[in-house]
């Protein structure tokens, strides 16, 4: 298993998905070598063997230069960087690939190579070349998703294209992602299997919500206000300017709405200005970066959770919100909407529809109650054990050269 992060050192959903998938696979008898680009302690991972490809700390996994942004990935970097040079992303990836080469030479061919996203695709391809083992490429997001309405980095596109071509089978986390892989990379659909992510409810923990973290919002709720929340990174991909515009539109129709934006990101200042320009700054709340209790309680305080993404391969946060008893409004461009029925859907640009749905839920307590209750049954049906079972099936199909199930 070739991954880039695991909890608690994850920056997003990729690490969480890799962790639960591996755990479920191990429970079904798989023996897993999990390669990471950094070295750190990971609690509760005794079900697999973790390898650190470098001595970097988790925070340096995109290179010592700092956070990952694909616009800084250059061909120049790849060609000129010494293998020992871990200052940038390409150096770390090269090092990672070399480590995987040595690992498979030492341990022999695995039954399957499972590589997650473009970050590890080159290592996956090398391992396949050396061992002849089948390569499963698991796509959690493409460069097209990450770059929003921009074109993305051509080098990353090239690596994704090669990885998808070389793969024996491809796992897409949603039908939306499958269609992007087909449309944008010209990969035939029968090579791609959609396996939706699940949510591990147990990992969210047992606790009593104390209603204190967002005391001011709770006090507004007592006065009849409805809290509409989103928990995300503030990047173009997440479509938050549409969210703010819809918030303004909804507030015109119904006065007792407030909006919680939990998270941080490059778009924060723009969103603050926009909410002031639209005259709703007073009812828009910014938390800054949150994790732990304030992160969890952002879901708890929410009556309505909106996923406004322009392009979201899956969208685990929607399931987390459902688990914390929020009614969901999700863009049609988010993969998670494929596995849920009791939600409102809209197109990311359609602020009138979003505003209408916000007001509709706020005005109808019984509608909100039904949405919350019904969606709980839906997300609970999806389990990591099903994901693992599907993966194992794919591994053995790929090994026996069968393409169709």
């Amino acid at each position, binding site marked *: 298993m070739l991954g880039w992060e695991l909890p608690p050192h994850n920056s997003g959903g990729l690490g969480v998905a890799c962790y639960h998938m591996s755990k479920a696979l191990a429970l079904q008898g798989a023996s897993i070598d999990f390669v990471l680009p950094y070295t750190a302690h990971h609690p509760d991972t005794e079900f697999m063997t973790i390898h650190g490809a470098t001595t970097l700390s988790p925070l340096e996994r995109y290179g010592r230069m700092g956070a990952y942004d694909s616009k800084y990935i250059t061909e120049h970097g790849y060609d000129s960087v010494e293998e020992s040079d871990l200052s940038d992303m390409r150096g770390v990836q090269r090092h990672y690939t070399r480590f995987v080469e040595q690992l498979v030479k030492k341990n022999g061919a695995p039954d399957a190579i499972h590589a997650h996203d473009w970050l590890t695709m080159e290592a996956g391809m090398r391992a396949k070349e050396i061992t002849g083992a089948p390569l499963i490429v698991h796509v959690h997001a493409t460069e097209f998703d990450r770059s929003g309405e921009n074109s993305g980095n051509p080098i990353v596109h090239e690596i994704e294209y090669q990885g998808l071509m070389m793969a024996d089978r491809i796992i897409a986390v949603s039908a939306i992602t499958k269609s992007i892989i087909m449309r944008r990379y010209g990969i035939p659909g029968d090579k791609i299997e959609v396996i939706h992510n699940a949510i591990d409810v147990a990992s969210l923990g047992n606790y009593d919500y104390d209603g*204190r*973290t*967002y*005391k*001011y*919002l*709770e*006090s507004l709720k007592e*006065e009849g206000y409805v809290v509409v929340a989103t928990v995300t990174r503030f990047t173009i991909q997440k479509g938050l300017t549409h969210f703010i515009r819809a918030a303004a539109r909804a507030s015109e129709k119904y006065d007792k709405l407030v909006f919680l934006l939990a998270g941080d990101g490059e778009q*924060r*200042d723009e969103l*603050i*200005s926009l909410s*002031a*320009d639209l*005259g709703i*700054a*007073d009812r828009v*709340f*910014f*938390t*800054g970066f949150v994790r732990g209790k*304030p992160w969890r309680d952002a879901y708890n305080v929410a009556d309505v959770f909106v996923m406004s993404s322009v392009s979201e391969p899956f969208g685990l946060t929607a399931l987390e919100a459902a688990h914390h008893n929020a009614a969901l409004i999700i863009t049609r461009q988010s993969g998670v909407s494929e596995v849920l029925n009791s939600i409102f859907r809209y197109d990311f640009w359609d602020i009138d529809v979003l505003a209408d749905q916000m007001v509709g839920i706020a005005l109808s307590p019984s509608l909100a109650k039904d949405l919350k209750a019904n969606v709980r049954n839906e997300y609970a049906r999806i389990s990591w054990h099903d994901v693992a079972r599907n993966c194992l099936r794919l591994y053995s199909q790929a090994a026996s050269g069968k393409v169709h199930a």
Partner: protein
Amino acid sequence: MSSRGIVLYLHVHQPLRVRKYSIFDTAENHDYFDESDTTTDRNNERVLRKVADKSYRPMNELLEKLLHKYPDFKVSLSITGTFIEQAEQWAPDVLESFKRLVATGQVEIVSETYYHSLAFFYSLEEFERQVRMHRDKIRELFGVETSVFRNTELAYNDSLAKWADEYGFKGIIAEGWDPVLEWRSPNHVYKPAGTQDISLLLKNYRLSDDLAFRFSNKAWEQWPLTADTYSEWANASMKDSPLVNLFMDYETFGEHQWADTGIFDFFEQFVGKWLDNPDNTFYTLSEAIDTHQPAGEISMPNTVTWADTERDLTAWLGNSMQQEALRHLYALEDEIIRSGDIGLIGDWRKLQTSDHVYYMCTKWFTDGDVHAYFSPYESPYDAFLYFMNALRDVRYRVSEYHKHRGL
């Protein structure tokens, strides 16, 4: 014949800056002004102690010396309530030294809003309450009455002059801005349009800014400025007029221009140099008004301030964050006042200090340097978020208050 006089007016002010006050503090903690991090300029105690050492103590010492040495040396000071409260807490000796200056009889205290607010533009009632509070505080502290008014940031227009006239002030001050003055000189006493018994004094911004902004600028062709040169400029400026009005922040001396720029020595030499000529003197604002008849009438229908190249209110009210912040703040007025809760009313008023919205200014490009220098926040957006959270907490407190009283 009356002497040619310099009118030196210095503005003493420190705001109560809002700490990093998040949504997680809102409705939990009410200590908006108590930053615990002692390494940041959001920490009000730290700033007050620092500026006391760099500016208030050395400058008051120098002023005291000059006042004793030269009976003709005069100064006018405006001292905000938010400064006084902080000095009472962290530098009482500084307040004592201000009292000694006033006791010489050569120092006039100028009237203003206690909280250095822009209340005039939002609520006349609240504005008058703050003027009254300030007059009471000045009387209590210094034993003097005020008779000349300055509005926050010298924000002035014709209706403010009318208000001050009707309120009984004999004088009011404003920026001597070219588009208003046209061919006229700022070096006269004027009468504000539509008033009866009040005079207007206008800042000579060229000579004022030579000290306040340019003094230590090594790229300035006049650097280093000497007392001789500056006296010549003042003389030349007054060729056909009786006054030069030097209006600036008190903190010019020692804080904006550090001691090592030579600002204190320069100032001492300049005062001596100026008074060497028996035709020259200094006036307080009131003396200048009492000594000279208005040379004409000045009308400023639009608000003029002493800030930036635009001389308007855009540094405080130019963007929608600033407008939203003050709109929501003043919307609470009735409920806040009705609560009768002195602590709550005080916190609400401390949020009215104009510096808070100044920190939210985003017109960085031409005036950005000045704003950047004065802001203790990472960005105007952070300043806005902390302020809004504090405002929400005030609203929470007032709603709790009325709930308990069955409103």
